[in-house]
């Protein structure tokens, strides 16, 4: 297969994927984003190869005993989505807990109404300016 036998889909997508791949390779030099960049570089490389040579997925699928290349891609997507789903659900729970804690701290720190001096009579209760409006 030579470069000049590309179909329309390949002609459009391959340059795009190449740009993204090159970008993530450059990002590998950035110490803080190295891990993410490496994962993306691998994904774009794999995407480029499978688009240019669709036979690769069939080859890999047969090695794994799956059969069809599209099935392999489907399985990988399903697994990835499930893992991502759990990951984000967990993140959401943690975020919600953190939010509740912040709201709680604020509420306890600034009571709207409480006794001006905890040992005084009930009539000494004060209302803060916030609530008078």
């Amino acid at each position: 297969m030579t470069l000049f036998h590309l179909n329309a889909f390949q002609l459009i997508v391959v340059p795009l994927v190449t740009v993204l791949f090159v970008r993530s390779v450059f990002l590998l030099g950035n110490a803080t984003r190295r891990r993410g960049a490496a994962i993306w570089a691998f994904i774009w490389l794999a995407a480029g190869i499978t688009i240019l040579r669709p036979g690769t997925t069939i080859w890999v699928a047969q090695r794994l005993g799956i059969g069809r290349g599209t099935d392999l891609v489907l399985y990988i997507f399903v697994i990835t989505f499930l893992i991502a789903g759990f990951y984000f659900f967990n993140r959401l729970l943690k975020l919600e807990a953190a939010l509740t804690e912040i709201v709680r701290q604020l509420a306890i720190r600034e009571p709207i109404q409480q006794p001006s001096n905890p040992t005084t009579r009930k009539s000494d209760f004060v209302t803060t300016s916030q609530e008078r409006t």
Partner: protein
Amino acid sequence: MAKRRPLELPISVSKLSILVLGAVGSPKYKCAPPTGMTITNPKIFIVIAAYNESRTIRSVADKLLATYSDVVVVDDGSTDDTAARLTGSGARVLRHCLNRGQGAALQTGVRYALAQGADVVVTFDADGQHDQKNIEALIRPIIDGECDVTLGSRFLGRAHNIPASRKMMLKAGVLFTRIFSRVKVSDSHNGLRALSRRAAASIQVTMDRMAHASEILDQIRQGGWTFQEIPVDIYYSEYSLAKGQSSWNAIKIGLQILLKRAL
């Protein structure tokens, strides 16, 4: 003759029956047993979580304040004037700037009460379905050092005007609790309960929304806290029924609890 070996199961029959029926014996103490000592001059704090309860909150607070000096109302980000209604009432009012759910609001109130030196913390509903006269019986065993937690039960006491559908739902909740929390109570979803200072400090509500009732029971069992059920009266009104949980919501809450357990 070869001795016949008893059938070996991966789980013993007795354990299985406990799992299935959710029956538990007397709780074993994991924490210190009840002190058995009377708390002299106890500081009683009543904690109320209120979300859009402007219709009832003032009368509920006033009735409580007639007997108890420390009433904490946590306004859970209400969009109505719930907090303003309490101006000059003598209640302590905290406000969540965002709505975080009843469980979260109760936890906020409990933490505040403990910081103010509460000896006994009582949780009370804002919609007027509870009777402040029941509080005395609820806090007595804790003040006397007989147990650390008391739980109000409308089925030992009286549930006035309870609709059949609500009763069925609550009984289903009791069954759910026996199976999954393995706590034997007659009324698992009653908002009227009292906690000793040490129990209140150990029990941490993390289920922000309605699943907190089950969570508190779970933590009572896990912590090994001793508890008693106290008969209480619940007064159903159109208002309290509308503010309560629909059966569909109850199912959602049950699923939420199971999901959280699975994770």
